[in-house]
């Protein structure tokens, strides 16, 4: 307030402005206080409500226990879970956890003579096929049974890693299986959703590492036939390493350019997605 006197000659307005600001600040503070009080009241009410609810539930539980006691006719110390029940509960939750493990793609379970692994494959957030490996651990690790497709080079991968690095073995095998299933899924999607654009049969082999097909492209109300040959040189990859798209030699230059663009697209984007993008373009 000392400032008030000093400022007085320079202007009453400045003083007034300051007073106004002070009053505004006070008002804001008061409002905040009020809000806090309101909140406190609300919370208190909630606490009250929850207490009531708790009492209610407690009453119900008591009633139920009394009822059970009445039925059994034996007096048990109330609400003391047996060690067995606790153990059972723990086992149950652990089992549920183990079941969850398949979401990671590789899970295992001990068997009498070794361990059984399950490799679950997935693509674009969809779980696809699961494959199993039953391993014996005595006298050395060996594959007893499995359901891995014959064209996956299981023997080769086993020879490299099975004895020395089982983690590596499983991860390499999982890569192979995932890539195979993903290639197959793309070809299936293509046949399912874009069969109207495909001319003739889609030719593929078991491992789906070579796809050959023809498709129609319309440009300026004319249709051109593109021939495609996709080679997946990397068996742990779901995208082709080589994509050859060719059109008739007498097609205009713009169409040839388009074929080249498609070839690039096939190498970068999943097959069915590439086709979806043609549709929207």
């Amino acid at each position, binding site marked *: 307030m000392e400032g008030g006197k000093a400022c007085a000659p320079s202007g009453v307005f400045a003083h007034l402005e300051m007073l106004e600001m002070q009053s505004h600040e006070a008002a804001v503070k008061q409002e905040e206080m009020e809000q806090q009080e309101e909140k406190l009241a609300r919370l208190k009410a909630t606490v009250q409500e929850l207490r009531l609810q708790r009492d209610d539930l407690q009453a119900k539980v008591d009633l139920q226990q009394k009822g059970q006691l009445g039925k059994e006719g034996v007096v048990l110390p109330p609400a003391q879970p047996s060690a067995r029940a606790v153990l059972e509960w723990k086992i149950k939750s652990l089992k549920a956890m183990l*079941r969850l493990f398949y979401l990671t793609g590789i899970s*295992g379970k001990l068997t009498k003579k070794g361990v059984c692994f*399950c490799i679950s494959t997935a693509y674009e957030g969809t779980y696809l096929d699961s494959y199993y490996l039953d391993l014996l651990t005595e006298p050395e690790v060996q594959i007893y049974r499995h*359901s891995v497709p*014959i*064209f996956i080079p299981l023997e080769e991968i086993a020879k490299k890693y099975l004895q020395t690095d089982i983690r590596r073995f499983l991860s390499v095998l999982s890569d192979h299986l995932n890539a195979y299933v993903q290639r197959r899924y793309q070809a299936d999607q293509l046949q399912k959703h874009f069969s109207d654009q495909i001319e003739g049969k889609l030719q593929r082999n078991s491992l789906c*590492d070579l796809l050959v097909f023809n498709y129609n492209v319309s440009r300026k109300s004319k249709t051109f036939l593109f021939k495609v040959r996709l080679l997946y040189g990397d068996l742990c990859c779901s995208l082709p390493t080589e994509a050859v798209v060719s059109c008739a030699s007498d097609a205009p230059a713009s169409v040839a350019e388009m074929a080249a663009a498609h070839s690039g697209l096939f190498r970068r984007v999943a097959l069915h997605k590439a086709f979806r993008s043609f549709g929207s373009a």
Partner: protein
Amino acid sequence: MDETVVEYIRRTVLKIPRDKIKAVLQEWDFLSEKQLQTIKFNQIKDNISYDVAQLCEENSADIKQAAILDIIYNYTYPNKRLWSVYQMRKTGGGTETFDLQVLKKKFKRQLRSVLKNVTINFREYEDSAIWIRIAWGTPYTKPNQYKTSYVVYHSQTPYVFISPSVLKSNLPLLCQALVVASNYHDICAMELRSHSLNSLKDIVFKTYSQNFQTYCPKPIQERNVAPESEDLRIIQENRSEKERIKRLNREVFGDGPQPQLEFAQYKLETMFKSNPKMDVLDKEPFRCLVKFSSPHLLESLKSLAPAGMADAALSPLLTCIPHKARNYFKIKEKKAFSPESFVTR
């Protein structure tokens, strides 16, 4: 126009069940939709076959079309033939990219280089299987279209499913052509035979129901809920025994349906063992052939123990069939160290 071709088509049509003729002809895609409409499919099969034959004559069908129709028929009804599984081997490892066109070309060239008079036809199916039909002739006679061999090959697998022609002498030629065309070095029969082609595939491709122990949630299968005794006064005396059998059976056979095989054959070549004083047949092998047959052998075996007709955990000789992928066995004396017999592989 070759009359024998038309007659061959007519006889193929006769083999198809009447209500499926139209569907097969549509898949064949040789007669136009308009032509198909002129055929009355509700008359007797003989008349339908003549109608089809006449239309084929108008379209001047050749042996290639006739062969394709035969392939479609055999693909639709594979259980009409007996299939054997062959395994191919190669010395070097590694999978190479498989090109169907290359296989076709090599197979044809290889076979034709030995025998001029053969009809070879291919048809690819969506499951990456190729069906090969071969009709055999001799150096001086035309191929006999009624005594064909069939080969089903899934690319990049070492297994071939062969349904041989009654003309047996051609089998080595066929095997050789297959080995050359698919870049392998050797081929041998696996002693696994059945009419059900799909079950053979399930066995060698390991897609049959195996009981793997995992924590994975398996798709819930509808099980026949055993009728629990409705009458509370009746107590199952041997419940634990029944559960034991059920568990053992499940460990061996898994939950799913079994592959369909019609027989399993065991040839015993073991020594007859007797009291040395009795002096009978001591050095002679005891020859005996046991053949189990059933419309669905593995399902029958599976139901033996639960039905109480055999002790649980059947002999591994019976239960190893899908795992060993063979249904013909020779049982010999185990050499020296153990008197028990064993299965030769």
